């Protein structure tokens, strides 16, 4: 039989029984739509978590003053060892390593700010231009702290959206001078509102150059130093680099603690794997269900068309031809059903995306490819049994079947 004829015959058979065709398309499309939707939501959830973590900063090492280990009772316990302060120069020294991408010194405090008659207590961060990139923050207006010598105390500040709203109300804030503690600074930028990371809400922050913040808090120490590695693999090397640099600068004392994200990332990986496996499992089940539905519908097809199959055998069709005809039907149905399901799934993801804008709902390409592939494979696999049954039909009985 020619392949064109096989296809034409199968399409004709599908058109000949619309209800059956519709049922089967429905079964297949629901299966595929389920996979597309589930993976879209799963992937959305994953991306959501990734974004949350990314806003914390990726490949980050955090340097704190003082040692956190307890070394037991030794001479130092009696000597009363005081950690040396972390300084801006310490932070600048850490930059000198090929695997370090960015370094941002950090100072934190609470300060009284005011503009005209309005006043507020706000958390203040002193840092450098690098902080924006490390924390993956976005600007709403204006610009972030300018790059330059971090020891220079420029009278500039960047404020959060909420601070802007509460202090300036309807007035434009950019370019205004506002009071901050006993000093004044010019507002050069307003933070976007999406950067909501653990501990600090960007909307409520005021960010100053680190040297200005030190003057404000009347100190020359740093609260933290954030170090961003170029890759995750470089983190242990950078940790060693930080410790040895600080030891050299602090007269041989290793009086800082370096926290890495390794522990966090490991947990994170486990969650992802579990999530992916769950989604894959659920997807597999729904496609399995679709496959079994396909099998049932194809079995019904075969019994409904017994007489026709018997006739084809009487006319000289051999087993393989019957097999191919039934499988072609199943293949066409699966393909069309899968495409339909894909469309339904995509529309569903769009709708969910509209309802929950925070969730980046979109089925990954591998899920779409897998759903289509698995749908067609299961459709065909589960049709082998009905097709074989059709091929084995006894023509005498099949012809008397009415």
């Amino acid at each position, binding site marked *: *039989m*020619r392949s064109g*004829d096989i296809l034409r*015959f199968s399409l*004709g*058979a599908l*058109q*000949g029984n619309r209800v059956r065709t519709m049922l089967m398309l429905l079964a297949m499309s629901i299966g595929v739509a389920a996979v597309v939707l589930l993976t879209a939501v799963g992937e959305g959830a994953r991306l959501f978590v990734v974004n949350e973590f990314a806003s914390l900063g990726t490949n980050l090492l955090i340097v704190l003053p003082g040692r956190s280990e307890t070394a037991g009772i030794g001479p130092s316990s009696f000597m009363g060892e005081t950690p040396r302060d972390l300084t801006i120069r310490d932070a600048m020294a850490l930059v000198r390593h090929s695997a370090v991408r960015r370094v941002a010194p950090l100072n934190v405090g609470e300060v009284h700010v005011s503009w005209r008659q309005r006043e507020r207590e706000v958390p203040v961060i002193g840092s450098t231009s690098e902080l924006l990139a490390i924390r993956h923050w976005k600007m709403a207006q204006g610009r972030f702290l300018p790059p330059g010598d971090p020891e220079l105390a420029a009278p500039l500040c960047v404020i959060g959206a909420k601070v802007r709203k509460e202090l300036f109300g309807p007035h434009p804030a950019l370019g205004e001078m506002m009071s901050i503690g006993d000093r004044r600074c010019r507002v050069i930028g307003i933070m976007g509102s999406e950067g909501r990371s653990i501990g600090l809400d960007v909307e409520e922050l005021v960010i100053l150059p680190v040297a200005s913040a030190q003057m404000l808090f009347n100190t020359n120490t740093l609260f933290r130093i954030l170090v961003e590695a170029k890759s995750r693999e470089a983190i242990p090397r950078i940790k060693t680099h930080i410790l040895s640099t600080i030891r050299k600068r602090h007269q041989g004392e290793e009086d800082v603690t370096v926290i890495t994200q390794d522990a966090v990332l490991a947990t994170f990986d486990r969650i992802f794997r579990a999530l992916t496996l769950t989604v894959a499992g659920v997807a597999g089940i729904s496609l399995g269900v679709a496959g079994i539905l396909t099998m049932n519908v194809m079995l019904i097809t075969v019994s409904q068309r017994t*007489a*026709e199959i*018997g*006739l*084809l*055998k*009487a*006319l*000289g*069709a*051999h*087993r*393989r*031809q019957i097999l191919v005809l039934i499988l072609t039907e199943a293949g066409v149905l699966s393909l069309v059903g899968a495409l339909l399901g894909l469309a339904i799934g995509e529309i569903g993801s769009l709708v969910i995306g509209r309802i929950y804008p925070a969730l980046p709902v979109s089925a990954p390409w591998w899920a779409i490819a897998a759903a289509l592939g698995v749908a067609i494979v299961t459709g065909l696999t589960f049709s082998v049994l009905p097709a074989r049954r059709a091929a084995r039909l006894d*023509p*005498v009985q099949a*012809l008397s079947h*009415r």
Partner: protein
Amino acid sequence: MIRLEHVHRVFQVGEQKVHALNDLMLHIGLGEYLSIMGPSGSGKSTLLNILGILDRSTSGQYLLDGTDVTSLTDDQQARTRREKIGFVFQFFHLVPRLTAEQNIELPLVLAGVSPAERKARTGRVLQAVGLEARAHHRPEELSGGQRQRVAIARATIMEPAVLLADEPTGNLDSASGKEVIEILEQLNRKGIILIVVTHDPEIGGRARRRIRLVDGRIISDISGHEKP
């Protein structure tokens, strides 16, 4: 052309064995016109199914055109059926969703014949059964007689050596029945072996050779014309 030697066909019905064909011997020569008659359950249909290779005998030999059909594989049997045997059924067995032309070309489609050649050949057989005008009608739009003529066209499109008709007029009124039997006889005059299974003594009596089956055995085999 056709030789059945000691053919038995035994069906298992529950605990009992039913001997549908019992040590049957039958030789049919080229161009014969044969009717098989007998009461219900006498084995007529079983004999026809075995002649059409739709069914296998339990034991015995079936030689068709010199080859032992029983020794062929399934695929070879299907091929033999396609090339040497045409069927005409009581209930027509047309595929309802296909037009007359598409029904007729089915055997050619199964044989992988090109569309152009199919077109030419269906055209010829449609003309032979007088249905050129109905080529694009579906079975439901045709009368019983017309449907049976479509079925005959389909049975003959492969130019088989043997035409097997199972109660070809059983579902038709007498006028269209007569028309159908005349078409079949016309085909026989052109050389095809025509074997008709029927209850109807009038139809059966038209054949030059008349076989009566009772309980799976041939009880009479009469050749030559008789006056009814």
